[in-house]
């Protein structure tokens, strides 16, 4: 693949590239991706300022998170892919142990134990898995012929299931599904047969009934019911969806203007600066703003796939593909739930919603993407 791309470069431009690209390469940065991320995070801060009730401190804090996240990304980009490959099983083990620790020693709120507290510093072990899961599955498959044989697929499913179930026990359905998805995406990239994929889809549909009956908690069922008919409980569970749909719809094509969104500025919109921030954007910038955001996301996703296609190793390709797809799942689930297409789950709008954890994790993922993009090790 790499040779193919090199052949595409025009002779006249090569000197121009040779001066710039080496620097970016030396710093292990993918400039187009970096530019897109900078645009997205800048736009995000802009929206966040309005969504947080025009509070400067909230903006500064988010700016600090971004700063930290870019540092993490930069650091993650410096690490050689081989090291990722070598370390991932150990991190996987560590992550699983910590998840077990959460079950026994975890702290949390609202009936869920998701945090570990070490020396006054609290963190969610599940965040580690978000990155480690695709790395580990990719590590497992990278030394095997692709598409993987059945027993290897089974082993991968076990690798995916173990932490997912542990997270499900916290309980944190949303994160468990996201982490499981990031592992399964690696399998998908690895080329498991369509029969598996179709079969899994059919199985998921069939299991819907028992899951509804025995697995889902009341509040989770409520969210799904609310999705189907938000009017049924206007001031309760349906309130959020009614208000966010009103915010989005009333934005129209042009939007009400920055800082002029009545739904968000007057507190009608709940969680306006976190999970529901897309509604603020849609209200204040209108459909135009939504299109700009989607375009940015699409370009980032396409760049991610480009990096995956051009990866010099199977490991890099699978990891890059999975990280990109997971990133897209965030976008789809968040935009879908705020617009009333999907049930409300705690998924932030990536790199726009306020909050440090998700930003750092996501940017670490992009750091790995950049490591894939700029690594020349690990030939297939």
């Amino acid at each position, binding site marked *: *693949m790499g040779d193919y791309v090199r052949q595409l470069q025009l002779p006249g431009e090569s000197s121009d590239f040779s001066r710039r690209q080496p620097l970016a390469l030396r710093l292990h940065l993918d400039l187009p991706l970096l530019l897109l991320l900078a645009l997205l995070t800048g736009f995000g801060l802009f929206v966040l300022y309005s969504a947080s009730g025009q509070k400067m401190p909230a903006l500064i804090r988010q700016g600090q998170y971004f700063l930290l996240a870019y540092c993490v990304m930069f650091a993650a980009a410096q690490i050689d892919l081989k090291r990722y490959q070598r370390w991932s099983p150990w991190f996987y083990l560590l992550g699983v142990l910590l998840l077990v620790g959460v079950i026994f020693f975890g702290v949390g709120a609202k009936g869920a134990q998701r945090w570990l507290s070490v020396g006054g510093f609290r963190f969610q072990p599940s965040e580690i898995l978000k990155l480690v899961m695709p790395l580990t599955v990719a590590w497992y498959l990278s030394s095997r*012929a*692709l*598409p993987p*044989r059945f027993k290897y697929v089974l082993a991968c499913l076990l690798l995916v299931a173990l932490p997912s179930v542990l997270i499900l026990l916290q309980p944190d359905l949303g994160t468990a599904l996201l982490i499981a998805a990031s592992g399964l995406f690696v399998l*998908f*990239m690895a*080329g498991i047969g369509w029969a598996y994929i179709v079969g899994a889809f059919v199985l998921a549909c069939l299991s819907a009934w028992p899951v509804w009956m025995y697995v889902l908690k009341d509040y989770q069922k409520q969210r799904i019911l609310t999705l189907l008919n938000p009017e049924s409980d206007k*001031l*309760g569970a349906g309130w959020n969806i009614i*208000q966010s*749909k*009103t*915010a*989005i*719809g*009333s*934005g*129209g*094509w042009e939007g009400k203007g920055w800082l002029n969104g*009545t*739904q968000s500025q*007057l*507190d*009608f919109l709940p969680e306006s600066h976190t999970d529901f921030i897309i509604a603020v954007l*849609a209200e204040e910038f*209108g*459909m135009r703003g*939504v*299109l700009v955001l*989607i375009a940015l*996301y*699409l370009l980032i*996703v*396409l760049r991610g*796939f480009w990096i*995956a*296609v051009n990866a010099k190793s*199977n490991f890099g*390709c699978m990891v890059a*593909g999975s990280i*990109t*797809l997971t990133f*897209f799942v965030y976008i*789809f689930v968040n*935009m*879908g739930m705020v*617009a*009333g*297409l999907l049930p409300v789950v705690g998924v932030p709008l990536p790199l726009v919603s306020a909050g440090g954890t998700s930003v750092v994790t996501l940017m670490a993922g992009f750091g790995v993407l950049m490591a894939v993009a700029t690594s020349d090790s690990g030939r*297939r």
Partner: protein
Amino acid sequence: MPQHIPLKDPGGEARLFITRILFSVLLVLALLGVILARYYDLQINDYEIYRTQSDRNRVQLQPLPPKRGLIYDRNGVLLADNRPSHILSIVRERVEDLDATLAELQTLLPISESDLENFQQKLQRRRPYEAVPLRFRLTEEERALLAVNRHRMPGVTVDAQLVRHYPHGPLFSHAVGYVGRINEQEAQSLDERDYRGTFHVGKVGVEKFYEDLLHGEVGYQNVETNAHGRVLRVLERFDPVPGADITLHLDFELQQTALEALGEQRGAVVAIDPWTGGVLALVSTPGFDTNLFVNGISSADYQALRNSPDVPLFNRAIQGQYPPGSTVKPMMAMAGLQAGLVTPETTVPDPGWYSLPGDSRRYRDWILKIRGTGHAPRVDMHMAVAESCDVYFYDLARRLTIDRMHEYLSGYGLGKRTQVDTTNERPGVLPSTRWKRDAMNQPWYPGETLSAGIGQGYMLATPMQLAAATSVLATRGQWRTPRLLRSVAGQELPNEPVETLSAPPAYWEAVHESMRAVVHSARGTARKIGEGIRYEMASKTGTSQVIGIAQNAIYVEADVAERHRNHGLFIAFAPYEAPTIAVAVIVENGGGASAASPIARAVLDAWLVDDPEPVDGVAEEQTDG
């Protein structure tokens, strides 16, 4: 196919990855298409719907209650003003669980049954997102408590509203009346638009009679609210038109004097400016603090007022119907002159009793009990009024007959409501044969004419009627409807007189002279109050027998004797030559007129004498001379 070979196949794997990535790109594009379609649907197709919904969300039409007009006395003393009062209200739409919220509020501050009842009623009639008042007059402490707990109770608001306040408490309770919370019945009759946002309405007295003037016109504002119902911005505003400030004829000082003079006694004083009909004083004792009623009286307070044997809620000045007794005698004398039955010189023999021709029953004069004889062998009109001779008027009444008596005395406004501008006035009774047939389905008996001649029997009059009648005497036959309202927003209101009685001046002079002698003569029945007086008055004493117990009063064993005592009455106008005030006083169970006359003197002094201590001053002058 290469896939089945367990060896690494880089070319095959590369193709595989490209296929999967291509598939992923297609999937991403498809799902983004779904998202875009959804946002297009919301933002473009249903834009109008959501735009409207969002406006309805934030913009709220709020009524702006008008400021109620102030009430002043004739000298600009404030009798009723508005003070800010904090009201606890609930916006039903923003409350998740109303019962829980109410229960929680009750743990924070007292909420009475009537508060709750009132609230539930109003809840049924509210508009969406309208705040419904639950508790009025929050104390500082209660407000602090609510402020602290407010975040836990969405939909609960505390607003300041101007609420009626009566700075002088019981002094003007019967003169001005009061406002109270709008009840269910009133809510149905009041204009719903005008009373949006208004919680109070005039219930009694001037407050009720001039409700339309005092209320003003409601205003509206479009406000932007946040999800918690807090007003953030006023988008559009139509100011309310405040109610008109009104000035009454009432005189604060006169009112106070009358109240003090009545003291602990039950009774009433009405003073009228005879040339304008303006009511200068309207006092009924005991009074009560009208402020109690503004925000819903507690049932304990209300029971205390209702069950008091002194019936403080009863406005004796306009609702109390008493036999006028001898106070009708000047009017009777005038009727006799007008009818040509007597001249001022006509005399009647007075043995101390009278009987109808062909009837042996003796109708006694009040003096017979005291002196054992009449006032004098022969009594003329002057003496008959000055000394309150019954026999003279028995004779005159018999000759006048009851129906002509009715006709002449009607000219003084007796027997019908004076139409004074306040509420709950009663008409009294001016009997006639027709009245008795209509009211009791009985024929008139001649003996009843004699009783009527001295203001007893069926005849009943309110203090207001007596004061108005005294004004007619003072103005020599001009009737003016008594008026509490003097001016609206500075605009004086005319009160055109009606000539109800026309008679030669000589007749009036004769009657006035006889009334002057009541105080200013050696044998006048009220000569005692003439001591040290610096002006002259025309007056008449009256005593009315208590047949039953006063209106809706309650028997209390120990009080029965006291409550069977006669009522004391007194009417007067002064100064004699150019009257500026006419007054009627009644003291329930006062024993006789001597209980009422000093009160009238005090009121007249307050009106006519500038010197704060006139009586002493005169007395000294006399001793010096």
